[in-house]
């Protein structure tokens, strides 16, 4: 829900909301100009004590993260170098969301330096940052925006002061632009020429200047291309798998035929060790690791290994048994149905995979007295602590480097692969570059668990008077740092009672945007031991999809148009504004052929508001269209996404996140799921797990970014998924005349032949030259 507490824009550009906190600035002891910024007075976080029924409205998950980050956010530093560039090692991970580009824009803006002269790298795990090195919850922009800009502004101030000293001039008369300080008399000095003179031999506190006001911005708020785009299109961007660490040879793992199975015995170690290229074999917690000269030879070895496996953690579970467990655990609806004036609905969402395209991988070099790890990690401190404990090393003997990830979608919140690489390296006594296979990623990797959402809404005298939603899910693992945040901030949270981590996160991320009278949304979890975790937007896609389908049913029951009905009941001006804009731009109410329909979904989270309007084509000609070896089905032909992000730091990047969210949603609504059978997903490749591909993506996506409604950015990386899923589901219901109750809609049909469970990684094909084009 969008908050109303946000302070109005300040004309002087001083931080608002969260930024009411004061900052401490330091000139750091360094050979070149280095500015550190530390926040203090953390108790002045922008969350007030709640008095409203739904906590998310006044204190959301991002606020939790901000509150936890406050005491340590300051230990960040912007440096200016003699070559005229500035650099910053971000305490966040880049996985495609555009964090590094946005941070570079913040620094360029406040420093008056061209964007191309700002370098943003990823900081190693820094245990002293405690809980302020977690990339998740769409929180990075919200928590970084003010501290990073403040550091850059201090750096600019120091450069000006240094030039003023050299020129014996009044600093107030000097100007900065494009990395140059200029004086009224024509004097000019580049930042590079001042960087060394501006440095300090001791660390001293410095005054904190005013930040620019949005009206002064020339970079922030303007569309900018990604700073790593050139490296990407030339193949130079280095991902974990591309790094070269001496002697870190390719390593893969033969895995059990059920989730989290164990190794009882390896029956042909000597024969596999004799295979070409194979150097080492080691039994690790959940498989047999093989190190070889190439990954191809690791795959060969996996074909040959004969292993006796022990039981996994969910061997007796299949889709049907999990669903039965969820149904048994559903919390009761407390308001009795008023018969003819009730909408009662229940929805099921299948397991889904948060696997990115880059398979999980990590490099580990574990020695007797130290260890070094490279991996794409969104919570590197937790990874460092856990790996050090596992290896029996002190934390200060373990270095964890954060590597850019080829996507994350929640997967990199956990360090499973880094821990495996460390275990394998320790047991082999050699460095390893360990990669999961694609099949490992789907079958043994983290999942968004199956859940049900039961909704009941009662109507009396033409008004919706109650709305109850009972969300029941296989438990989601939050053991990656958010749990520690909740523990550390428990006394400040607006949720009462002894809630679990998951319940707390649910309550901090969910709220109904409608005036539906008595409203309750509750979570219950079933403790099955699947490998789960957050997937982009966590609970919201499922909760909002169920909600919006029910809203459409309520509208129909009351003989109202879906958009008109929403206008009547929405209780937030920003949500109403994006809905109205979407209806206008997306041409709501357009006459479409039979079998096609529009659908709309609205949502508010991360202090943003968003509406999606889609058109879906469910005509037989489209549903049955033939693409070789493709799952086709209904096609979303057009999508309009209207977003109010508070302040849009980089509209081009924001648009990209909305488009990605829409493609995720299309997959979740129509095609993508995991089928659990006897303790393991059947899916093993992207031709089994039908993530959206070109033949299912809309030909027409339009993203409208509303004029800024705040000086502060909201979260955006996950925002688009929930309302898009809802819109697609509502459109499908209207096009077919049947409200879908099980997602994705094709889950009941297994559209592929599963790979065998052993070998756990299938052999690569050999017909690549037959399929050239």
């Amino acid at each position, binding site marked *: 829900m969008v908050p109303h507490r946000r302070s109005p824009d300040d004309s002087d550009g001083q931080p608002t909301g969260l930024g009411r906190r004061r900052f401490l600035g330091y000139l750091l002891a360094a050979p070149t100009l280095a500015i550190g910024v530390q926040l203090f007075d953390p108790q002045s976080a922008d969350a007030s004590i709640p008095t409203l029924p739904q906590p998310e409205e006044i204190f959301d998950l991002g606020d939790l993260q901000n509150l936890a980050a406050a005491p340590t956010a300051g230990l960040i530093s912007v440096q200016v170098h003699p070559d005229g560039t500035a650099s910053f090692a971000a305490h966040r991970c880049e*996985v*495609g*969301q555009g964090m590094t580009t946005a941070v570079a824009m913040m620094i360029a803006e406040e420093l008056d330096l061209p964007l191309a002269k700002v370098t943003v790298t990823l900081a190693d795990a820094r245990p002293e940052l405690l809980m302020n090195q977690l990339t998740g919850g769409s929180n990075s922009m919200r928590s970084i925006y003010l501290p990073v800009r403040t550091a850059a502004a201090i750096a600019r101030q120091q450069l000006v002061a240094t030039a003023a000293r050299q020129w014996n001039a009044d600093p107030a008369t000097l100007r900065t632009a494009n990395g140059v300080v200029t004086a009224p008399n024509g004097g000019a000095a580049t930042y590079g020429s001042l960087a060394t003179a501006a440095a300090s031999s001791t660390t001293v506190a410095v005054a904190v200047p005013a930040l620019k006001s949005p009206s002064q911005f020339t970079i922030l708020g303007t569309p900018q*291309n*990604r700073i*790593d785009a050139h490296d*990407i*299109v*030339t*193949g130079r961007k*280095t*991902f974990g*798998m*591309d790094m070269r660490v001496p002697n870190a040879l390719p390593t893969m793992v033969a895995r059990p035929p059920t989730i989290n199975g164990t190794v009882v015995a390896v029956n042909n170690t000597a024969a596999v060790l004799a295979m*070409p*290229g194979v150097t080492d074999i080691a039994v690790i917690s959940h498989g047999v690791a093989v190190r070889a*000269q*190439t*990954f*191809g*030879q690791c795959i*060969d070895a996996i074909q040959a290994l004969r292993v006796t496996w022990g039981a996994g953690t969910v061997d007796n579970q299949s889709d049907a048994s999990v669903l039965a467990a969820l149904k048994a655990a559903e919390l009761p609806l407390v308001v009795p149905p008023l018969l003819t004036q009730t909408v009662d609905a229940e929805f099921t969402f299948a397991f889904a995979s948060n*696997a*990115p*395209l*880059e*398979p999980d991988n990590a490099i580990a070099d574990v020695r007797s007295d130290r260890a070094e790890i490279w991996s794409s990690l969104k919570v590197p401190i937790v990874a460092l602590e856990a790996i050090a404990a596992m290896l029996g090393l002190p934390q200060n003997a373990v270095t964890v480097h954060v590597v850019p*990830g*080829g*996507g994350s*979608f929640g997967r990199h919140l956990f360090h499973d692969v880094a821990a495996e690489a460390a275990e394998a390296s320790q047991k082999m006594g050699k460095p390893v570059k360990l990669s999961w*296979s*694609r099949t490992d990623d789907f079958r043994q990797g983290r999942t968004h668990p199956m859940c049900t959402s039961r909704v009941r809404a009662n109507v009396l005298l033409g008004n919706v008077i109650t709305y109850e939603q009972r969300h029941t899910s296989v438990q989601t693992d939050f053991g990656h740092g958010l749990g520690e945040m909740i523990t550390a901030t428990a006394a400040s949270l607006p949720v009462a009672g002894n809630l679990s981590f998951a319940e707390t996160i649910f309550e901090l991320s969910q709220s109904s945007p409608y005036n539906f009278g008595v409203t309750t949304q509750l979570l219950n979890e079933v403790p099955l031991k699947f490998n789960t975790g957050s997937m982009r937007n966590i609970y919201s896609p499922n909760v909002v999809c169920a909600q919006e389908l029910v809203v459409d049913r309520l509208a129909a029951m009351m003989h109202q148009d879906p958009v008109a009905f929403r206008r009547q009941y929405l209780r937030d001006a920003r949500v109403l504004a994006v809905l109205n804009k979407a209806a206008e731009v997306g041409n709501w109410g357009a006459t479409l052929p039979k079998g096609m329909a529009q659908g709309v979904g609205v949502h508010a989270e991360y202090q943003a508001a968003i509406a999606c309007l889609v058109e879906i084509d469910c005509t037989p000609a489209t549903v049955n269209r033939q*693409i*070789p070896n*493709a799952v086709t089905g209904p096609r979303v032909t057009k999508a309009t996404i209207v977003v109010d992000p508070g302040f849009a730091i980089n509209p*081009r990047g924001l648009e*990209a996140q909305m*488009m*990605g*969210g*829409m493609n995720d949603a299309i997959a979740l609504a129509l095609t993508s799921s995991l089928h659990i059978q006897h303790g393991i997903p059947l899916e093993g490749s*992207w031709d089994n797990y039908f*993530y959206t591909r*070109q*033949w299912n*993506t809309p*030909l027409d*996506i339009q993203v409208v970014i509303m004029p800024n409604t705040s000086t502060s950015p909201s979260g955006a990386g996950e925002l688009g998924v929930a309302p898009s899923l809802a819109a697609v589901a509502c459109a499908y219901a209207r096009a077919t005349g049947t409200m879908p109750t099980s997602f994705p809609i094709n889950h009941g049909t297994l559209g592929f032949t599963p790979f065998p469970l052993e070998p756990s*990684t*299938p052999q*690569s*094909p*050999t*017909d*690549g*030259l037959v*399929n*050239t*084009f």
Partner: protein
Amino acid sequence: MSSHTFTVNGTQVTVDTDDSVRLLWVLRDILGITGPKYGCGLEVCKACTSHINGKAFNPCSVPVSQIQPTDEITTIEGLPATVGKDLHPMQQAWLDADVAQCGYCQPGQIMAAVAKVKQVRAEGREITDDDLDQIRNICRCGTYTRIREAIKAGAQNM
């Protein structure tokens, strides 16, 4: 273990490895050419898409023994040289549209796009939405819309 000679990005190379090792691992693990990405090793995700004698293919599914001494392999690293520029027009179109998010699939997407445009040109026509629908490369970030836009723009300058 046997010797395999072929040309990659304009340079003749000889590698000693087993016949069955797929070309992707020869490129990545032996030659250190990492533009072609590993996304599945199953000829499905297409992240490793490169060119053999100007045609798109997936080196994850070609044993190195199938590569002939006369074969010319081009990876994303060698694409600009095929047009004698610092960037191929398709790469420039990718920059102009700011296509990439995480970037992992994009080398393969660009190589597939160049081949697809050439393929339809050989058929005497320009690229259509139906042609674009046939491109199988997965983008898990969901950049498909900008990919389509970039391919159409890049084709104009090819």
